[in-house]
């Protein structure tokens, strides 16, 4: 009797140890978008669906129970920031990295920098850092964002990709005898031709989240001399997103970025030209339930790489499409144009647009850091990245290899053209100048200007007032020491 009680105790003890260890082997992951769609397969987002499957694969191999928590994309950064501050984030967060929402809260994340020089057990290189494609230091800097420290690691699309391109209806272009435009003047002429044929040239959604992304390349192109002045004054290295919020506040306070600046006004005028000649007339309030491009209402649209899979796989798609990068603003379209190329969204390395992961500091406190690191190492090992790449609508192409060598189908080449041509470089990348206000004052006032309610000069005056107010508050909110700022440049 006593023996059986003893055995029973041992069994219970073992079971409880088993339960406890099983509990330790669980990981919660905050995941980008709706996990149910990824689980069902064939979702609109091939990149995240692939990441989701890789995590499941890792969980199975390691015998870890993973719980995914869907994060609806609308308001995701605000939500994650709140959760980060309140210490309620899951063990791992899967998201596109963004620096603005992390400002001042980096101490709440696990700094991964030290791990980069250590080996990745799943990798085939000496260090984890080497696993990332190409020049890992630049790739990681783009991804990690602040102060050279690594807070995010991710899968990367190893090719020089611009995130936003113009998709065009090749059937309409062929019918109208149109070529892919390489300058803004050519684009505007293309729009005129299309309009003349009764076709709405280009779809734009002023209410959508990507409107700012769309206008920023134009603004960046026109503001190039202002960017140079800012970077020179601060002695900052030219790089993607090199112009920080603090630099912008300095620029506003010192009159470098102002509503009366000729480049600012010219930028608005150029954008108005584009809006008037190219965009759908209801661009300020389009019917967002309809994809104007897919349903043949417009000949062009501006969108990201994620639409490749959606358009390519859509049953509604009845035409042949291609892509081209937003063309250069030439001197014919604007006498103040100074750049011989167009600025582009996207980091110079693939990592910037890949799916990324961060670990909140609470994970360490919960004793799950090792498990979380293991997952991240698994997800970013070169071999896993290759596996991830194989499921993307956009093939992973090394930068020194011509796209035509990898993609031989002319139709597919046309679809991918805008993403790879011209080849991305530091010169082309968006450097962060533009409207500094989170509410998009420039875009809001531009809408008023476009509707004819105010003149260009009035737009400039109103932008100036709003920017000054923004700079004043940004200084107070961030507690910047303005006495340490560079001196105002000589006018």
């Amino acid at each position: 009797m006593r023996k059986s009680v003893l055995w029973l105790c041992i069994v219970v003890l073992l079971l409880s140890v088993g339960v406890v260890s099983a509990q330790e082997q669980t990981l919660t992951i905050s995941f980008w978008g709706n996990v149910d769609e990824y689980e069902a397969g064939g979702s609109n987002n091939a990149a995240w669906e692939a990441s989701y499957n890789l995590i499941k694969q890792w969980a199975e191999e390691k015998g870890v129970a993973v719980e995914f928590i869907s994060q609806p994309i609308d308001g995701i950064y605000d939500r994650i920031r709140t959760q980060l501050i309140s210490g309620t984030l899951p063990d791992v967060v899967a998201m596109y990295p963004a620096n603005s929402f992390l400002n001042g809260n980096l101490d709440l994340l696990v700094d991964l920098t030290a791990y980069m020089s250590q080996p990745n057990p799943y990798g085939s290189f000496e260090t984890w850092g080497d696993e990332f494609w190409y020049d890992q230091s630049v790739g990681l800097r783009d991804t990690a964002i602040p102060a050279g420290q690594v807070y995010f690691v991710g899968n990367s699309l190893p090719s020089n990709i611009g995130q936003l391109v113009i998709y065009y209806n090749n059937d309409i272009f062929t019918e109208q005898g149109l070529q892919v435009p390489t300058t803004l003047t050519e684009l505007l002429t293309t729009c005129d031709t299309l309009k003349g044929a009764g076709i709405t040239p280009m779809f734009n959604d002023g209410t959508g989240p990507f409107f700012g992304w769309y206008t920023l390349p134009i603004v960046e192109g026109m503001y190039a001399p202002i960017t140079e002045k800012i970077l020179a004054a601060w002695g900052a290295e030219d790089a993607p997103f090199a112009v920080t919020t603090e630099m912008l506040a300095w620029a506003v306070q010192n009159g470098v970025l102002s509503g009366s600046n000729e480049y600012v006004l010219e930028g608005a005028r150029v954008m108005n030209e584009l809006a008037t000649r190219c965009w759908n007339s209801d661009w300020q309030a389009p019917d967002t339930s309809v994809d104007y491009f897919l349903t043949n209402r417009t000949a062009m649209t501006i969108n990201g790489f994620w639409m490749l899979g959606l358009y390519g796989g859509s049953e509604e798609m009845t035409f042949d499409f291609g892509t081209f990068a937003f063309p250069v603003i030439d001197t014919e379209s604007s006498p103040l144009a100074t750049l011989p190329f167009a600025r582009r969204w996207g980091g110079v390395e693939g990592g910037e647009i890949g799916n990324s992961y961060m670990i909140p500091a609470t994970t360490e406190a919960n004793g799950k850091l090792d498990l979380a690191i293991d997952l991240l190492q698994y997800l970013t090992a070169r071999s896993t990245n290759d596996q991830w790449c194989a499921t993307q609508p956009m093939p992973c192409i090394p930068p020194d290899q011509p796209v035509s060598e990898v993609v031989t189908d002319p139709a597919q080449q046309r679809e991918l053209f805008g993403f790879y041509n011209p080849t991305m470089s530091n010169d082309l990348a968006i450097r962060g100048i533009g409207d500094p206000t989170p509410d998009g004052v420039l875009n809001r006032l531009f809408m008023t200007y476009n509707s004819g309610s105010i003149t260009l000069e009035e737009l400039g005056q109103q932008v100036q007032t709003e920017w000054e107010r923004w700079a004043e508050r940004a200084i107070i909110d961030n507690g910047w020491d303005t006495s340490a700022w560079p001196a105002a440049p000589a006018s």
Partner: protein
Amino acid sequence: MTEIRATRAESTLAKTNAEGVRRKSLLRSIWKNRVLYLLLSPTIIGMIVFQYYPALTAFWGSFHSWDGRRARFVGLFNYEFFLEDPRLLQSWVNILLLLIFNVLSLSMPLLIAYLIYRLPNPTHRYWYRVLVVLPIIAPGFVFIVLWRWLFSLDGGINIILRSLGVDSQVVWLGNANTALGSIMFMGFPWIDAFTVLIFLAGFIAIPTEMLDAAAVDGASGWSRFFRIELPQVQGQIKVLVILTFIGTVQDFGRALFMTRGGPGYATMVPGLRMYNAFTQESAYGYASAIGVILFIVILVLTLINQRLIRSSES
């Protein structure tokens, strides 16, 4: 001298005794109704935690530069910043126009409630009531989607206008001149079921004796409505006007979902400025200051409103 002292001592003793008795009777009363107090306490605690505490936090936050994690005292800066906003006047004008419109549009549910009330057949009255209440079942999102489509370039309103021979190419929500008017027009014919039911309840509660007496005195038609029935639902009107005032000043949902305050700032309202400051800028202190100002405005408007209605009653 000793007498005075004695009197004072007696009076103090009497006061203390009286206070003691009061305290005892209060405690006794609480003890006597302990079950009621016990049942009320979760609600009160919940209100303190989830309503009063956040409101007080917002008041505190309005004097700070606060990003949700760190707060630094900035005095009245947030208030000054809001009051110096060049867009402030426009957003208050927008609110004022919405306010006037919303108060005026209360006449529609009043009319419908009255017509239902006057229906002689109780079965018909029942079914009309059901008809008015039925749309509540539809989720609010459907309402937004429907109206967005109606206002779009190829949407319902332009289709109707084109069928009438007007070549309408108006982008109702995308034009600074028509966007606010379009938001007002949303929900046409502005029959809110709850408002109809409140008015209807008021009409039904009118004593039949009063109506019979009015009929004997020759009151009928408009005179019956304006002199007898309408004054009898004044209580309902008062409540609904106050609720409309509060609701309109607080509301930014329509502007957010329909236009995000645009085009430009054409449909911007203070509540949306608060929402944007909170969600887009993580400027919790500034958003709190806007919230406090909105609270004061609503309070003042409600008091003025009540005073006006009370004086009109007297």
